[in-house]
C-alpha cells in the first residue's frame, strides 16, 4: 500500500479533524469487519463528565442523594488533582453515545473514538449478554420514563418517602438481578402501556396471596410446604411481586431500580472482556492507520504513552498494585488469542487444537459473542499468558496460620490457576448467594432468606442494616438463615421494622 499524507495532528482538536479521524478509523474498522451501532460523538466539559460519572454515565437519571455523594467525591478527587477523569464514557444505546472531553488532545480524541465508538460499541452489539439483557434502542427512553415516574412519585408522596424506598432498593440492587434466567422479550413501548394494567393486576395477585378468608379443605391439603416452591435468587423481583404492604407505585419504583440494575449487570460480568476488547481494537486500528502512513510519529508517541499507562499491570508487591487490572488482562488475552491463531507454538496446538492456525477474525467473533469474563478466562487463558503475567494463586483459609501458595505458572499449576482466576470473575461466587427461601403464609407472614455459604465465607458486617431494608420493604419480620456446605442450617437473625413509624 502506498504511503499517504498523514492527517494533521495539532494538540488542539477541531470538529473537522475529529470527523476526519473518525472516518479513517471507521474505514479501518469496517476493513476488520467490526459490526457496530451507528454512533454519536458528544463533546462535553470536565464538569459534565463529573455529572455523568455521578449517574453511572447515563445522560438522564432520577434524582437521589447518593448520586450527589458520588459527584462530590469525584469533584474532590479531580480538584485536588488526585485523579484524572476517564477520557471517555460510552453508553450502550442505539445510536451508541460516546463522550469526548474538551480537554483531550487530538490524539486522545482519536484514541477515545477508536476505543469507545468502535471497540466498546461493537462489543455491546455482539456479546450475548448485552443482546439478551439490554435493549440498546430503548434504554434512554426507559431512563426518561423512570426519571419522570419517580419525580411524579416524589410530588405525590413526598421526597422523604421516595428516598427511603430508593435507599432500600439501592441497598438490595446486587441481589435484585437474575443471574441465570433469561428475560422475556418486551419492547419498552408495550411495557409503558401495560404499566397501569400491571399495577392493578399485581395488587390483585398480592391480595389473593394474603386472602384471610378460609380456603377450601382439599386445596389446603395440597398446599406446598414452602412459598415460593423453588428458592428465588432475585430478591427485588420477589418483593415487587409479593410484598404484601407495598402500594402500586412502590412496586413500580422497585421495578425501576431492578430493571436498571439488570441493565448494568452484563457490564459487571464482562469487564475484562469488554475493556480488553476495546483496548485491543484501539491498539489495532490506530496501528493500522500508522502503517498506512496516515498518522505522524508524534501522534504515535502520545498514543503509545496513554495506551501503555492504561494496560500496565504492576506486580503484587508494588505499591501501585490494586488487584489485577482488567484492561491489562483483557488486552493481553485478546492479543494472545490472535497470536494463537496466527503464530501457534507446539504448546498452543496442544492446549487449543481448534484455535491454533485458524482465522483469527472468526475466532474473535465467536469469543466475542458467546462468553463472559468467567467463561472467557476458563476457555482462553493460555499457559504463555500465565507465564507472562507470572500469575500465582494464594489461598487464605482462616483455619490455617499461614497463607498457602496453591499454584504458580508451571506445568502442574496451569489448570488450577486458570480455574481459580475464572472463579474470581464469577459474580455468582464473588457475591453472597442469597435466596428467598420461604414465606410463612399461615403464621406471622415472615420472610425467610437463606444464605448458602460458599467456601465457608460469612456475610459481611453490613448484614443487619441490609436486613432492615428488606424488612421495611416486606413489612413483616424477616429471618436470615445460613446453610453451610455440609447442608446444616442455622438461624442468624430476625429483623422487624415497625412500619407504622414511617406513616
Amino acid at each position: 500500500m502506498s504511503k499517504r499524507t498523514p492527517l494533521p495532528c495539532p494538540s488542539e482538536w477541531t470538529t473537522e479533524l475529529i470527523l476526519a479521524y473518525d472516518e479513517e478509523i471507521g474505514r479501518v474498522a469496517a476493513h476488520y469487519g467490526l459490526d457496530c451501532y451507528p454512533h454519536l460523538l458528544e463533546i462535553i466539559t470536565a464538569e459534565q463528565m463529573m455529572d455523568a460519572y455521578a449517574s453511572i454515565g447515563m445522560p438522564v437519571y432520577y434524582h437521589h442523594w447518593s448520586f450527589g455523594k458520588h459527584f462530590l467525591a469525584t469533584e474532590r478527587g479531580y480538584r485536588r488533582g488526585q485523579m484524572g477523569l476517564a477520557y471517555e464514557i460510552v453508553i450502550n444505546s442505539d445510536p451508541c453515545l460516546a463522550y469526548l472531553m474538551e480537554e483531550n488532545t487530538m490524539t486522545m480524541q482519536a484514541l477515545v473514538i477508536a476505543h469507545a465508538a468502535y471497540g466498546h460499541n461493537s462489543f455491546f452489539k455482539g456479546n450475548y449478554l448485552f443482546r439478551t439483557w439490554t435493549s440498546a434502542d430503548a434504554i434512554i427512553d426507559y431512563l426518561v420514563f423512570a426519571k419522570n415516574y419517580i419525580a411524579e412519585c416524589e410530588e405525590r408522596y413526598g421526597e422523604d418517602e421516595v428516598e427511603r424506598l430508593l435507599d432500600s432498593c439501592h441497598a438490595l440492587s446486587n441481589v435484585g438481578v437474575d443471574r441465570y434466567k433469561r428475560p422475556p422479550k418486551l419492547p419498552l413501548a408495550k411495557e409503558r402501556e401495560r404499566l397501569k394494567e400491571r399495577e392493578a393486576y399485581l395488587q390483585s395477585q398480592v391480595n389473593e396471596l394474603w386472602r384471610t378468608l378460609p380456603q377450601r379443605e382439599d386445596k389446603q391439603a395440597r398446599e406446598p410446604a414452602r412459598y415460593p416452591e423453588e428458592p428465588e435468587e432475585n430478591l427485588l423481583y420477589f418483593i415487587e411481586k409479593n410484598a404484601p404492604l407495598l402500594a402500586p407505585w412502590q412496586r413500580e419504583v422497585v421495578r425501576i431500580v431492578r430493571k436498571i440494575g439488570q441493565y448494568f449487570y452484563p457490564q459487571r460480568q464482562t469487564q475484562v472482556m469488554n475493556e480488553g476488547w476495546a483496548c485491543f481494537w484501539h491498539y489495532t486500528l490506530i496501528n493500522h492507520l500508522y502503517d498506512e502512513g496516515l498518522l505522524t510519529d508524534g501522534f504515535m508517541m502520545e498514543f503509545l504513552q496513554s495506551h501503555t499507562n492504561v494496560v500496565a499491570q504492576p506486580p503484587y508487591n508494588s505499591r501501585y498494585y490494586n488487584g489485577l487490572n482488567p484492561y491489562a488482562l483483557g488486552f493481553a488475552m485478546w492479543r494472545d488469542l490472535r497470536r494463537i491463531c496466527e503464530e501457534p507454538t507446539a504448546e498452543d496446538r496442544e492446549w487449543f487444537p481448534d484455535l491454533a492456525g485458524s482465522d483469527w477474525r472468526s475466532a474473535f467473533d465467536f469469543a466475542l459473542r458467546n462468553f463472559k469474563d468467567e467463561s472467557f478466562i476458563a476457555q482462553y487463558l493460555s499457559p504463555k499468558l500465565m507465564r507472562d503475567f507470572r500469575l500465582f494463586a494464594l489461598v487464605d483459609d482462616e483455619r490455617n496460620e499461614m497463607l498457602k501458595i496453591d499454584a504458580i505458572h508451571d506445568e502442574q499449576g496451569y489448570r488450577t490457576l486458570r480455574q481459580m482466576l475464572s472463579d474470581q470473575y464469577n459474580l455468582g461466587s464473588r457475591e453472597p448467594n442469597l435466596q428467598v427461601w420461604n414465606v410463612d403464609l399461615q403464621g406471622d407472614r415472615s420472610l425467610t432468606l437463606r444464605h448458602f455459604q460458599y467456601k465457608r465465607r460469612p456475610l459481611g458486617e453490613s448484614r443487619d442494616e441490609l436486613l432492615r431494608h428488606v424488612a421495611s420493604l416486606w413489612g413483616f419480620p424477616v429471618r436470615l438463615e445460613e446453610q453451610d456446605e455440609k447442608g446444616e442450617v442455622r438461624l442468624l437473625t430476625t429483623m422487624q421494622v415497625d412500619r407504622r413509624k414511617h406513616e
Partner: protein
Amino acid sequence: MVGVRIVDRRFDSKNKSAVNRGRFIRRFKSQIRKAVSDAIGKRGITDIDSGEKVGIPAKDIAEPHFHHGRGGIRSDVLPGNDRFHAGDEAERPEDGGAGEGNQGASEDGEGQDDFAFTLTREEFLDIFFDDLALPNLVKTQLARVDEYKRIRAGFTQSGVPTNINIVRSLRSAAGRRIAVGTPYRRELREAKQALADLEACGQEHSEEAEQLRQRIARLLRKIENVPFIDTFDLRYNNRVRVPAPSTQAVMFCLMDVSGSMDEEKKQIAKRFFMLLYLFLTRTYDHIDLVFIRHHTTAAEVDEEDFFHSRETGGTVVSSALELMQQIIAERYASSTWNIYGAQASDGDNWENDSPRCRQMLDEHIIPLVQYFAYIEIIAAEPQNLWREYEKLEGLHPGRFAMQRIAGLPDIYPVFRELFKKRLA
C-alpha cells in the same frame, strides 16, 4: 460511514448534579451541621462569609450491599510472582487479608477517613442561619450579594437615548462643526477678499469676479452642509455598578473571660459576634473589629487570644466599657465611623460596678453608637448587671438590645430591632 455526528454539549445545561447535591446535603443535614459548627469554632469572625470544606464520617454515608465478610476460604490470583513455588506458605499480612479483604477501604478513595467536600458560601450560610433560627426575610437579606448602586463615571459615545447628555453632545457638535468648517471658511474669507479687491478696482463684471462669486456660493453651500449634529457627536452619561456599601464601621466585641466563661459559652458568644459582623458586611464597606476582653481589668487583644485564652479572677465590667470609650475617642471619631457594640458575658459582675456600667453606657457609649447589643449567657438567676441594664432598655429604643441566652436560637432576638430597621 453511517450517521456519524458530533454534538457539542459543552454549553448545555451545566450543574446537572445540583439537585443531587442538594439532596445529599438535605439528607445529611445533621452531620453537616455538626461539621459546620466545628468549622465555625475554627474560623475567624471575618471569614464567616465564605464557603467551607467540611467532613462527615464516611460510615454514616456508606451505601451498604450484601457482601462477604472476612473468614472462610478465600483465594486470589496475583500477578508478578518473584519467589514462590507451589506449596509455599506465606505470612498473613497484618491488616486485612490478601486481595479482596481490603477492597472496602479503597471504595471511597480515602478509606475510613471522613468524607470531605466543600460547601459553597450559600450552603454554609444556610446552615449557619438554621441554627440561629433567623426569619427567612433576614436570611435572604444577609445571604444576598447582589446589592449594587449605580454611580456616574464620565461619558461614553454609546448608550441609550435616555442617557444622552445634551450639553456634552452639543459641545462636541460645535467642535466638530468648527473643525470641519474652518478650511472652507478660510477659503471663503480669501475669496471674499479677492472679490472685494476686484470690485475696488472696478472689475466687478470681469470673468474672474464671476468665478469668485460662484466659488463663494459653492463654499457657502459646503459650510451650510456641515451637519448641525451628527451621531458622532452624541455623548451619553455613563453609569457603572458598584457594590452598595460605601461607608465604614467599627465593631466592638466585648467579652468576659473570667473563669466562669467556659468554652461552650464562648462558642455561643462567637456566633453572636459573627451574626453582627455578617450584618455589618451587608451595610458597610470597611469594617474594623476591636476585641476587648476583660476580667478585673480590660485589654485589647487579637481574635485568637480573644476566644482561646482563659483567665481567672473576678469581674469588673466597667473596665471594658472604659477601654471601649477610650478607643472610640482615640481612633474612631464618631462622625466618620459607624460604631457597633456587642457585649457577651455570663452576667457575673462585681456588685458595686454594675450601676457604674449602666451609667457609662447611658451617658457615654450609647449616644456614640448605632447599636449596642448585650447577651447574657445563661445563669440561673439574672445577675446584678442584667438588672441594671434592664433600666436602659426603655431609654434608648432601637439602639440597645439585651437578651438572656440559653442556646443558639435565642441570639437572633437581640438583633431584631437592628434587622427591622434595615429591612424597612
